[in-house]
């Protein structure tokens, strides 16, 4: 099930952090991702473990890899996240939030 892969991928805090960092800048080498995790987030995880996390994200379609000459870069792909919104309908983002609509009539004591 593709959705199972998606939820499994999102269910881990390290993988969510990797997605955060790829949101800041898409197209990172494994080395850069490892550096960001350890130096910015204090996550002491091995390069092999990061590779495995990336493989899970890739299976879910959230990360794509691209070879450019001798280098390999990882890109963010948020398209699969739409399946979540489609499965559990989200009201129009442009519409008013339920609490932010016209003044609620709560002034009655």
């Amino acid at each position: 099930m593709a959705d199972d892969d998606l939820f499994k991928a999102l269910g881990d805090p390290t993988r969510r952090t990797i997605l955060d960092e790829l949101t800041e800048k898409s197209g990172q080498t494994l080395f850069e991702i490892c550096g960001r995790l350890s130096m910015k987030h204090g996550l002491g995880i091995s390069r092999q473990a990061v590779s495995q996390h990336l493989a899970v994200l890739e299976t879910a379609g959230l990360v794509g890899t691209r070879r450019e000459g001798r280098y390999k870069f990882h890109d963010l792909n948020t398209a699969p996240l739409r399946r979540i919104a489609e499965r559990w309908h989200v009201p129009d983002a442009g519409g008013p939030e339920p609490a932010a609509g016209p003044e609620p009539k709560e002034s009655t004591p």
Partner: protein
Amino acid sequence: MRIHLTSVFVDDQAKAEHFYTEILGFVKKHDVPVGEKDRWLTVVSPDEPDGTELLLEPAGHPAARTYRDALVEDGIPLAQFAVDDVQAEYTRLHGLGVRFTQEPVEMGPVTTAVFDDTCGNLIQIATQPQ
């Protein structure tokens, strides 16, 4: 004990000499013929002429290519050089056509960037907070 010399394997010593001196700005320290065409070729920082030497070693060993290619694919630098300002150095080198695999990124206390030395290796530059 002190670190006197460290080395990078380079595809072509003449090309490496050009890149490490003309582009990066190091100064040639030793250039001694070794064997048929190889040289004992070292460079140093102009700021520290008696500091650690970097040996530009011919990558002739069969294992060297496999090793270096695997590192480059994952973006892992072979050496790190200190610079006063990574962003300024990035701008300068980028202007000279140097290819970066990682643009300057603040990583906690340090700012780093990674570029291709055109001789088969990735090199990291870093600015440490003073």
